[in-house]
């Protein structure tokens, strides 16, 4: 599939996301009644509604939003009274940092575990891996986060429980967030590796006396990695989503906390800016994954 068609698909996805978030946020209630105190008289409510442009029909509001969004202007936050995009962009690096660290953590665990399980299929290690995978899937990340805080921050006092001050602040939230995909990624690597290990070229390599270590880590893993890489784009997006919860637990100053609070206070500009930016990141990471196949597997590039 050529790049321009891919890009077009991506644009349609982002546009779709913009419609959905715009309509859904407006279905969920009136921000003015949350902004003003309960005893505010109707004329003050009306003045605020006009001031925020909420008195216009939804379609007009949407077109206005879209026109401005194209220039990067998402309007001012109702509550913070500053440009919504600034609020999001200021916090986005913290979220991306956390998501990447979590993803790296998960891959760093999943690849050796997956390969080892495949190589020693049916062994105690493989069986342990299955239990481990099940545990990982069953434990929600906020709970893992709280356990990590209790053990490493309160009991052992090795790492800080909250904030974003140094690299050590990143460790616990990254583990809490990266924990969940470890299990699934290990299973993916394991099954891909099992397939590859039975392929002709591996048998051929063995027959030719290629050292086992080189064969596994250089030749087999490269092919076994394709399904993992495919899914990494999706996982990166999942990390961004999961970060919304983990950020609250660890008081991590990322975009998730801001968006969650904005949802509750019906701060539409912030919700829209946050969701639009995450959608762009989501679509972009998927696009990058698609394009990266070509680098790993030349057949896809030429196909």
């Amino acid at each position: 599939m050529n790049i321009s068609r891919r890009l077009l698909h991506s644009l349609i996805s982002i546009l779709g996301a913009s419609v959905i978030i715009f309509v859904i946020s407006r279905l969920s209630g009136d921000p003015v009644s949350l902004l003003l105190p309960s005893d505010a008289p109707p004329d003050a409510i009306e003045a605020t509604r006009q001031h925020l442009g909420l008195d216009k029909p939804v379609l007009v509001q949407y077109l206005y939003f879209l026109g401005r969004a194209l220039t990067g202007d998402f309007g001012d936050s109702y509550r913070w009274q500053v440009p919504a995009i600034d609020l999001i962009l200021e916090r986005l690096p913290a979220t991306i940092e956390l998501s990447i660290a979590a993803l790296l953590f998960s891959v760093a665990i999943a690849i050796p575990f997956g390969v080892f399980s495949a190589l020693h299929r049916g062994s105690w290690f493989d069986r342990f891996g299955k239990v481990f995978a099940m545990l990982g899937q069953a434990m929600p990340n906020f709970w893992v986060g709280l356990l990590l805080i209790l053990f490493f921050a309160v009991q052992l006092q090795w790492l800080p429980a909250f904030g974003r001050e140094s690299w050590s602040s990143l460790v616990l939230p990254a583990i809490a967030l990266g924990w969940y995909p470890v299990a699934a990624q290990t299973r993916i690597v394991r099954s891909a590796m099992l397939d590859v290990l039975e392929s002709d070229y591996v048998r051929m390599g063995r027959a030719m006396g290629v050292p086992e270590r080189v064969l596994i880590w250089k030749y087999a893993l490269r092919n076994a990695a394709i399904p993992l890489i495919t899914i990494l784009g999706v996982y990166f997006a999942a990390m961004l989503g999961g970060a919304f919860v983990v950020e609250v637990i660890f008081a991590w100053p990322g975009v998730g906390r801001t968006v969650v609070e904005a949802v509750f206070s019906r701060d539409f500009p912030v919700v829209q800016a946050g969701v639009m930016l995450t959608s762009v990141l989501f679509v972009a990471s998927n696009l990058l994954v698609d394009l990266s196949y070509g680098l790993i597997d030349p057949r896809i590039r030429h196909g």
Partner: protein
Amino acid sequence: MPRILSRRSIGAALLGALPLAAFAQAAPAPTGTLTVAFASESTAIDPIKISAGVDHYFVGQLFEMLVRPNAQLEQENWLAESWTLEQSADGKPVIDVRLRQGVKFHNGDPMTAEDIEFSWQRQRDPKKSFFSHNVASVERIEIIDPHHLKIHFKEPDASFVAGGLQIWVMPKKYIEQVGEEEFARKPVGTGPWKFVSRSVKEELRLEAFEDYWHPTKRPGVKELVIKIIPEDLTRVSAFKTGRVDWIDNVPPAMVEEFKKMPGVKTQTVVSGNNLFINFNTHMPKSPFNDVRVRQAAAHAIDVDAIIKRVLFGEGERYAQVGKGSAGYDPELKPYAYDQKRARELLKEAGYPNGFDIPCYNLTTPREPNVKEVGEAMFAYLSSVGIRCQVRNLEYGAWISLGKRGRSGPPEMDGVLSWMWSQGLPGDPGTPWVGHLHSFQPGTGLGTYSYTNDPEADALVMEQRRTMDPAARAEILKKLARLKQERAIGGIPTYRPLVTFAWRDKLDYTPWPVRDYWRVFQEVGWKQQ
């Protein structure tokens, strides 16, 4: 003939008469850094941009009002040295205010009557301010001299007095010089703390204001760092590991543990929130149109047990008006827990087998365990025959359901877990305009009310016009009794308590600001 409200002004007038310099020498220079953790964060630090209760947490450290509640929750003249209620020649109310001398803003400018007039102008503009209605009754402010002004009213407005003269004092010269945006970035007030820096979602840094006007109620700590840690357990961990020395909202289940912790002090205070359950009485066929059914509901719930078991004691039972509030009546007791009586009342009302009814619950933790409290209350109601079909709502949906006058569904057609908050210790006057007075579309009356009682309406309006606090308190008392007898405007349940914890190297007394605590007015290190 002007009436002098000496009750409010005498104490502060005496304090004002004492030479400030005598105290100033006694206060040692502030030292050290105090790091504290709040559970939630303010958005704007501009007093007119306050849009949620938590916004007071930051605004209250930097800005002050003319009158405020003190640590004992008594109204105290603050930037106003004294004030009296008078009448103009045409019979309209006028408040004559004498400002305290020697008050400075953080940039060194002295506070004068011009700043008060400017602050009012800034606050009354609905395009800028979310609180324009608070000062809408003011016609003009007349400046007599730099420390003397008169507030002229279009009409009587009791909430203006109850709300501590409603004006946050902001610096005219500074805002005109630097502009609105810069003021929002670098706020300047008269409060005990000066703004240093802020990183949103992380921390607010403040520094003790060395030229603060109050001789004794001033920080003994040089630097205050406010961290934001929303998750209960993380906040508790931060305290236990020594990363912070003071925490907000100790989780109710852990209050006992904190009280026993060596080297730790705690204080539990009442929040300005008043919880109650409300009933649909606006639909013709609602069972709650019958007073006996409402009384049955009041008898059905064991609120004390809920406070003990679900809130771990972090709640205070109240009957209509909380202790210490205007209109508080110690004679008035909550409906006793008596399920037998509840069943009898239901039978008398024609519901021997009870009835099914939707019960709307708030799930967003606006107060600790509020969802669980709702569930417990609805279970009690069900056990006498008011069979609740529980419907859970998050905050936005909840507030939109409770509000009257929407054009379409959903409609509040059953029982609703609800609350009002106004001031500390919780003045009911203004909230009852919205929560008790009958709903009158387009007027702001009864915006959240499911009651239609002409006698209550008349009393609500009367207290709203009565600016003399003592006279108004009497009307509120009468209203509270009526409310209790007829079980109108909902059944009061409890007022949440909140516990703060700090290391005992700190000398600290909690102070409120308007409806909320958490102002570091009196804080310092203990003498070694």
